């Protein structure tokens, strides 16, 4: 198709023609014709130039987000006619590379080594290659869009975490819970102690309190199975920030890091974008499976995570929720999931910090709401962690 330069040329041709018409100079007509002919020739030649070109891309089967991705781009010209001035715009795995190839000989196959820096998490079937040419003189451009057959999985970025979950039973994955009676969990009677603010009134032992004259509560040692179920919020409206520094990507990184640790320790875990989804995929200790899943998950859901579960196949799990501070989760503590699993771990990403400088969207929870939620979750026995930037992640995870 014509470029802006073409329009200038044709304008000049029209102007010269008008001058020639009025002045009566024969050579000016010749000049006008030349000015018109070269854009026309460019339209044809540029179109011929991009025909039958085939791109190919050789890549490893997988790579991790942020790593360098070595690749070999192959451009094949099956024609007997050479190709000139090819602009190649190769987009692959979130990375982009532009090449200019002055000449591709007849029936030539050119292999170009290249490194894609900063490939982005995802599962890709091939590169999107735009071949364009404005040969010979840049007056018209022809474009073709092709795809290569070069699948790759770009696993999410993950941190190597030192230590393990805060528990005394690393190998079995048990931890001591607080003295609050819960459903669906086996509890061991520990004794009676003084009432502390925040204790559930239901745990008050009235007989002992009447005898001692002060409030006494019954303390239970809850046995919780540290089988984490990582639940990643894919609610698109909650995703704040850009690119790899967005809340969703940070959540995926956190989940990947934690899942990797579980896999290293050969512990089982589950992962999903909702409790039902995690239940459907089941428990696993395969890092590859989970990384594959994490590579492909995207924040495309129209609704917040459904935490009003009816039942899960595992009575003893620890849900690890990765959420953004969206108002939809302001009453998270009142969900059925938290009711059934009050010792959940909630890792909340403060979207306000992640989207600083961007155009404001739906308002997120403010400090007061966050504090209140944290307090309520704490009183339930849940662990609440607020992450305000991707840089904090390693530190926060090592504290978990």
């Amino acid at each position: 198709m014509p470029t802006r330069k073409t329009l200038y040329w044709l304008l000049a041709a029209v102007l010269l023609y008008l001058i020639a018409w009025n002045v009566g100079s024969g050579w000016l007509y010749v000049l006008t014709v030349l000015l018109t002919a070269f854009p026309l020739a460019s339209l044809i030649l540029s179109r011929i130039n991009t025909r039958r070109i085939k791109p190919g891309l050789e890549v490893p089967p997988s790579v991790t987000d942020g790593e360098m991705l070595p690749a070999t781009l192959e451009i094949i010209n099956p024609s007997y006619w050479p190709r000139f001035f090819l602009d190649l715009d190769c987009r692959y795995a979130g990375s982009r590379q532009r090449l200019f190839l002055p000449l591709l000989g007849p029936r030539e196959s050119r292999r170009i080594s290249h490194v894609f820096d900063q490939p982005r998490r995802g599962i890709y079937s091939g590169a999107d290659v735009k071949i364009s040419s404005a040969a010979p003189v840049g007056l018209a451009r022809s474009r073709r869009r092709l795809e290569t057959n070069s699948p790759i999985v770009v696993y999410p970025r993950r941190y190597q975490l030192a230590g393990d979950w805060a528990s005394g039973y690393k190998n079995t994955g048990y931890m001591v819970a607080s003295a609050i009676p819960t459903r669906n969990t086996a509890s061991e009677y520990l004794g009676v102690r003084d009432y502390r603010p925040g204790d559930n009134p239901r745990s008050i032992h009235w007989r002992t309190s009447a005898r001692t004259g002060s409030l006494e509560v019954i303390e239970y040692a809850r046995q919780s199975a540290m089988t984490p179920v990582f639940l990643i919020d894919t609610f698109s409206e909650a995703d704040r920030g850009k690119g790899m520094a967005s809340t969703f990507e940070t959540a995926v990184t956190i989940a990947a890091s934690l899942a990797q640790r579980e896999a290293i320790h050969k512990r089982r875990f589950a992962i999903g974008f909702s409790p039902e989804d995690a239940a459907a995929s089941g428990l696993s200790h395969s890092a590859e499976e989970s990384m594959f899943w994490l590579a492909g998950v995207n924040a495309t859901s129209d609704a917040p995570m459904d935490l009003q579960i009816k039942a899960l196949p595992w009575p003893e799990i620890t849900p690890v929720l990765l959420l953004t501070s969206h108002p939809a989760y302001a009453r998270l503590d009142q969900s059925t999931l938290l009711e059934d699993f009050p010792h959940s771990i909630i890792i909340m990403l403060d979207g306000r910090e992640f989207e600083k400088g961007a155009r404001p969207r739906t308002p997120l929870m403010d400090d007061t709401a966050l504090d209140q939620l944290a307090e309520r979750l704490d009183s339930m026995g849940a662990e609440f962690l607020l992450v305000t930037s991707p840089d904090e992640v390693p530190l926060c995870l090592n504290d978990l």
Partner: protein
Amino acid sequence: MFERFINIYSRINPRRVPENSLGLRLSVLAAILTAEIAILSMGYYDTLSVLGVPTLTTAGFAYSWKYRQRRNLLMKFVLSMLVIAVAVLFTRELTINIYDTRLPLIKLLLWLQVLHSFDLPARRDLKFSLASGLILLASAAVMSTGMVYILGLAPFTITAVIALIFLYISEASQQADRVLEARPVQVIAYGAFAWLAGIAIAVPLLLIMPQSSQARLHAQPVSNLQKILGDFTAEVVNPSYSSGGNPFDHPPQFSPESYYGFNPYMDLRSRGNLSDDVVLKVRSDNYDFYRGVVFDRYNGKGWEISSETTTDITTDSPPFTLSDSEYPVIPVKSRLQSFYVQTEMPNIIFAAWKPQQLFFPASKIKVDDYGSIRSPYQLTEDTVYSVISEEPIFSASTLRRYPRTSDPPADFQYTSLLESDDMQVVASLSHEITAPYSNRYDKVRAIEKYLKENYAYDLDIPPLMENKDAVAYFLFDEKRGYCEHFASAMAVMARSAGIPARVVTGYSGGSYNPFTALWEIKQSDAHAWVEIYFGSAGWAPFDPTPGFEVPAGQNQGQSPWIAGKIFSYLGDVLGGSAIGGVLATASGAITGVLAFALTLPLGLIAGIVLGMTVLVWIGQKASRPLLMKRRRRRFLIKSLGPDYSSEKVLRDYLKLSIRLQQRGLVRRPDETIREFAERVSDFLDSREFVELSEMVEQIRYQKVSLPEPSDSQARKLVEKVIFKLKTKELGAWRSRGLF
């Protein structure tokens, strides 16, 4: 204050990214130099310009290359001052000759180009330079009077194409993350190919381009004025012929380099062929006759000029005002002609009748009683002059009314004849021809027609016999001859009938060069015709020579199509060769077709063009589904393999797949046949397609030969699927409320 000025100046001239491509700079320089040389070689400018402009341009490019990284504020300031100086010089030159502003303008452009070449740090500056080179070349096109312009045009286009290629490479390299190398030879080779491709398209475009035959903006070019001190002879001086004594007492002279009619006499005994050298190039809207010398006294062997009286006209600067129009009763049309003299010529200033204003490079001229103009010196090569003539538009109906009885009679010499037996015979012939007519115009036309129809134009005739009257010899003995024999015969016959007549020599219009838009007049285009007196209507021209028509009074506009003109011109150039004949025939054919096309009403032509465009558009749209279908079919055939055609089941599957594609159900590249079938079945809510796909899989991949009824079974499955598709569509339309 000074610092503030520097700051402002710096802001006006921001630093630009320097262009480091040497190839680009060299090719732009080559293009600019080509354009400059194309103009400077035309001979219009002084030695300082001719040598200085290209040299300084090259120096400027070198300077710009070396200091491209610097801001060069001081140089920019100096250049600004020089631009002002050049503008002042231009204004001064403009006032010297306000009738032709082209030369000062082009000079201004040239020196601006020189100054600009010292400030070309960035790619954008080089682009501007190339554009200004194009403007210079266009200026050269306007000034060019010959085919030699192509020697500047061709190299410019080649260097410009190469410059554009380098420009493209430079721009693309800047945008790309990585540039793979190419050898410059490959780039230049591709540039040459691109140039050829452009020319291949340009040639047919040129042939169909309409060209105006009339200029709307006029300049009156004239070469440098020469002051004439003292008097000069008004007699015609022709350096190719010796003068002195009575030429009719000596053997006749002939020089192929100059027409013998451009003398104080015209010797009808002269024999020979004039050369085909181009003597004049004329810029004029129309084909015309250019008048030179007028003869009024016939002596049996030739013609002489009876009156030696002339009028002096002087001027300090052009133009000369020759006379007021003496055609109060005849409509006139103003015509501008510019003459470019190509060789040494007699002291005759040729012009179309009747010249009113003359732009001639002399301070003094003479005009004789017949309206012919004499130059104070012989015309030399590169003399340029312009004439504005008021050409009378004679028509038969007008001339039949003249002369009126109240009109003054012509002078005696225009009706006088020799008294001889030969003249008596000529007179009786004249009376025989003119007897049926009472009107002077009709009588003259009768004589003209008689000569055209009964005598042949022939350049190869024997010498005039001694003691024979030239006109009588032509009319009764030889019956063939040159144009001056025809003109002499007509003048004598007209005088015999009592009609005042005189013979005029000059040049016919020549052949039109569509490239230069100039009429090229050869020596062999020298011509003679007759002027007849019609009282207050003046002297009207007639031409009795076969193959010639008087252009005066007729609007002999050119065909607007260049193709016919090019073929015609090439036919003239190639002359009598076979190719010339073919080209001349082609020219006639093309002109005829185009002339017919032009007679059609504009609305009809527009309607035909519009109708054809619409038909093409409809055809393209209609053929698109068919082409898409074919493409899909080819793709599917490929994917199924080469043996599909041998299996009816596979063919049916193929046809069904095409139908599914039309409804948006396309098998993805990563989808197997089985997966696709499942998807389609989900959509159609039936399993027929799955069954069909299983059969296809068995044939295609398992190489299993299915039992005989498989063909009919497959056909039934296909029909069911199609029925389901249609039902699905109908349902969709119903839900959308279309049924």
